């Protein structure tokens, strides 16, 4: 284990094995608890934006609605179409959810704290290749959608999966390039390092273009409106998850919303100073996770807000936007940042 920590993560100090297990459990539990909150928040906020209440029958103000939804889905019968490929059909949602949870592990919720006489970093793991780890799992997450859609043995699922594949590949490039600017400015790939490098100024100011590109590409990467062509209900029934029901559908749903949280966390970490507060306020360490969660909730709100506002793009518009607008802009941003970094150093 010590070997692993030195090669995979240059944390600079030794974390006890029980701390690592505890951290994994806490992060998994917190991530799991956040998803239903996002679910109900999305339905309530979108309801208000559309002049209606949203769910308000189950529990006080409809707060238990996600619980009811999840219970309903989990108690349903597992079935699959006769044309489907059974093994892949069962594995694909697991791939989706696994990658989402794994990506959640690198979001730093605070600086290194001293708890019970141990040094504990408030993150799952501070990998020295932060963004690369993120994109690696983003790339594997695409298999969740791709395999799920393809193994369903249905044309709608297949079309959704093909769109998903093209979309994720197109936008991953811009998303990655948008982060390159930040990495060059911070001179580190570690997410905690990037946060610490933002002590003077949060990166969304010098890297405004990168921030906007990353945010836009993130909508496509998480398959959220207006880029939700993979599950375009109006034309593809349900897209890649048309044939899914019950617990497997719940897994896909869970993964989608966890991805929204992950992307919000990454934007918070990379562009909005993570646990740092503006105006030189230095709160005690236990405030850090609250600050991060607050910033994450703002971006999650933005995701919901955009979903309530923008109509879905046409497929060719999606492609031309990704390759002809976002990619050149991201490349230009990288070049300009590189020149500026060289000039100023």
């Amino acid at each position, binding site marked *: 284990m010590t070997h692993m920590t030195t090669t995979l993560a240059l944390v600079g100090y030794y974390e006890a094995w029980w701390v690592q297990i505890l951290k994994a459990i806490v992060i998994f539990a917190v991530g799991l608890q956040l998803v239903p909150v996002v679910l109900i928040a999305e339905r309530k*906020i979108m*309801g*208000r*934006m*559309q*002049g*209606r*209440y949203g769910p308000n029958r189950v529990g006080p103000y409809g707060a238990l609605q996600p619980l009811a939804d999840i219970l309903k889905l989990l108690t349903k019968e597992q079935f699959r179409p006769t044309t489907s490929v059974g093994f892949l059909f069962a594995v694909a949602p697991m791939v989706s959810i696994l990658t989402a949870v794994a990506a959640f592990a690198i979001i730093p919720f605070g600086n290194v704290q001293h708890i019970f006489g141990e040094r504990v970093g408030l993150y799952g793991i501070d990998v020295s290749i932060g963004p690369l780890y993120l994109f690696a799992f983003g790339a594997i997450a695409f298999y969740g959608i791709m395999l799920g859609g393809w193994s369903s043995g249905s044309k709608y699922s297949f079309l959704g999966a093909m769109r998903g594949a093209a979309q994720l590949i197109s936008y991953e490039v811009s998303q990655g390039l948008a982060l390159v600017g930040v990495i060059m400015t911070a001179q580190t790939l570690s997410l905690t390092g990037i946060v610490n490098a933002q002590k003077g100024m949060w990166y969304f100011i010098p890297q405004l273009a990168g921030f906007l590109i990353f945010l836009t590409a993130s909508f496509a990467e998480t398959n959220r409106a207006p880029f939700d062509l993979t599950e375009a209900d109006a034309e593809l029934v349900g897209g890649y998850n048309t044939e899914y029901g019950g617990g497997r559908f719940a897994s896909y749903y869970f993964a989608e919303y966890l991805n929204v949280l992950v992307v919000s966390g990454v934007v918070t970490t990379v562009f909005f100073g993570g646990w740092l507060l503006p105006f030189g306020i230095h709160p005690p360490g236990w405030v850090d996770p609250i600050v991060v969660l607050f910033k994450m909730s703002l971006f999650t709100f933005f995701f919901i*807000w*955009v979903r*309530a*506002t*923008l109509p879905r793009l046409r497929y060719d518009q999606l492609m031309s936007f990704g390759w002809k*607008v976002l990619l050149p802009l991201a490349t230009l941003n990288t070049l300009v940042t590189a020149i500026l970094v060289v000039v100023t150093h």
Partner: protein
Amino acid sequence: MSDTPAVSLNVTAWSPGEDVIEVQRPPAAGAARGAWRTFVETARGLKTTFGRIAEGTNTIQYPEEKVPVYPRFRGRHKLHRFEDTGLEKCVGCSLCAAACPADCIRVVAAENTPDNRVSAGERYAAVYEINLSRCIFCGYCEVACPFDAITMGHDYELSDYDRSDLIFTKEMLLAEPLERTPLRNEGE
């Protein structure tokens, strides 16, 4: 054919008249200005949806709140009695059943006797049934009735678990209705 003069059609430019409709065409998409316009319009859309939050909701929480019906709303039928004597207004003439396009009213008339006086007329409806699962709420029965014995009420919450429960008998139609539906006042 060649030497026939060309038909002069007096072709002048057709004038569309004074009231020309100005067609506003969107500017062509693309380029930097297009990108900027997309950005601005997206921001405008976001402002619109955010503003909706403050405007509140238009939902009517149905089982608790109800939309008041108009006085002439045609809901479930009612049979009436004379207020002074308490006798039924219906004389069993079956005109309502004859007028009914859905054929959902069944009337069996019987003679009034001095011992058993039910209605004000010569005869009364011994059986008066409306099959509400067939009724189309057209109100023709109300129009056909010469004694205003049957009118359309305001209740519309008529769902039930059994078709046979939707056959309303005379007693049910005569009974004071629950009036579960609020009535809209004049000018509301």
